[in-house]
């Protein structure tokens, strides 16, 4: 009865796809199914991808430059931002702290923009932390990165 193969079809198809993907990953370090796409440092930050952030930083990528962020902060749009600004977009204190721990510059020269961005993005933990370090900032006339 040929119809019996209908029972085996889906399991075999899934197994073959992932076996091919797994074999490719073992050979080329890149699986066929769900490979990692190249991202900028700020994109990794906006994706909450701590491992990728550390990989790029230890590989020499600067935490203080501005990089394009596509389709994360604003759907379907390029949003140039620094890693600290991208961390604010996640509203996650641990991402902001990660950037600082690995050497991102935070000083009076960029604290105001970051504070105002955190306030605008409702990243309250980060905003309060910045306020503690640099005092309350006046956001009148501050131009935000997005």
């Amino acid at each position, binding site marked *: 009865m040929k119809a019996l193969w209908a029972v085996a079809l889906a399991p075999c198809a899934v197994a073959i796809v992932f076996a091919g993907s797994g074999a490719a990953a073992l050979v080329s370090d890149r699986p066929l199914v769900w490979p990692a796409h190249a991202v900028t440092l700020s994109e990794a930050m906006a994706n909450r991808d701590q491992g990728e952030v550390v990989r790029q930083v230890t590989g020499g990528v600067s935490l203080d430059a501005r990089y394009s962020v596509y389709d994360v902060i604003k759907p379907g749009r390029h949003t140039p931002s620094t890693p600290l600004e991208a961390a604010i977009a996640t509203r996650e204190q641990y991402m902001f702290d990660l950037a600082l721990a690995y*050497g991102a510059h935070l000083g009076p020269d960029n604290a105001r923009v970051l504070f105002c961005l955190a306030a605008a993005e409702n990243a309250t933990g980060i905003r309060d932390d910045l306020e503690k370090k640099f005092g309350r900032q006046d956001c009148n006339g501050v131009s935000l990165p997005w």
Partner: protein
Amino acid sequence: MPSPSRLEPRAAAWALGLVFAVGLAGSVYRIPIQVSDALETIERALAVPSLSASFASGIGNSPTMLRPLREMRTKALVDVGDALGGRYHLAFRGYHALAGVVLVLLFVGAAAPRTWTDVTALAFGLAVLTGMHTFSGMFREAYPTNHFLTISTYALATFGLARSRGGWMVDAAAVACLAIALLTLESGVLVFVVAVAAMASRSRGISRAGIAGMLLVLAGYAYLRLGYLDMRTAGLGEHVTGWWSGRLEPSEQVAQFGANPLPLYAYNVVMAGISVLLSQPSAGQWTVVEAWRDHGLSPVFVVEIGSSILTTALIVWYALGRDDMGRRRRLDPIVVAFVTLLGANAFVSWAYVKNEIVGTAGVFYALAAYAAARALLLRPKAATVALLALVSTAWAVRDAGLHFKMRHTAFVSRSEWAAELMPNERNDWPADPRRLAVVSRLKAEAIERQGPPPAQMPDWAESWWGEE
């Protein structure tokens, strides 16, 4: 001598097993060594000078756990990593991936497919094996190796031994399997349960002398644990566990059941057993109720519960029926082993429920599903074949979900390393140069292993496969 026409399906069955195994190994190998529950054990292994010393350190280093082979295995893999020039990922994850391959191939061996109908049923059985929610935990977690996987592997190996032609070497191997399993994890006792269940169903591979030898090992273990080391078992409030549609923190368990923990223990045992049959509750928690209450049922619940209900019904049909010779199938070794293990495995979950604790019962559930599907396919009717194809497809979806979940685990495990050896916390770095060198190397290997963050995964994936 078997005819070529009988050889062909067997070769196909092993090839099919290998295809499943390679896919599993490929996804396991993508997961960086995790920090939680693993780094501490690896660092402990660095402090002991030899394998025998690591074995000794595993005896008496905990008031509840007697797991010297876990310590020894970790030490051995650190040594292998050293010998490979500091390639610890290759040592640990290579071992984990290989253990997965062995388990899948043991499953094929236990299924013993001989015809094309058997091979068709095997495809279904393998999808059930790898799609089970109890299976994924054996590969998504490692401490730094996964001892639940070890127990399932030795249980399956013992079942194979019990169904072999026997001999003194088989007996010796069965005794060794039990000893290794017991000294790896307390639920290694399940290996003995498998041997006894096989004997009860008239499998004679392991002789009475072999069973007596296993009993002796068990008695020795009990004396070592209870008499000599005066150890206690895991008790109330040591882990978070599910309770109906919620979860109980350790302090809540003590507050609610401190005076009489029996209702919680009974709940845990019953729910652990039910979870194998229905895919719910998950770790003791009826997550489906919470999901229904909050935002309606997503496809993952329909696929998981639906496929489990139908597969359990298929197994019940099989177990209650008779074979071609008119013998009751409830004495079938696979049925007896599954039912006995389900009870025993649920029982060892009394203190708290975790999906992978019942992983061994899950493996034998898949074996029973295979046997039931094979029986159904021997007298195929269009409607039943169509229904089985539907169930099989649902399990294939769950199998794909295993790989999705392992990608998520890889992301989480890699992320954990960002908080280790932070540049702004050099005072907290290990003072011992060897320890610092190994942890640095582990971090570098984990960070280098690129994988997609959840944001790069398909939007629909979580609703079909869940996030956990």
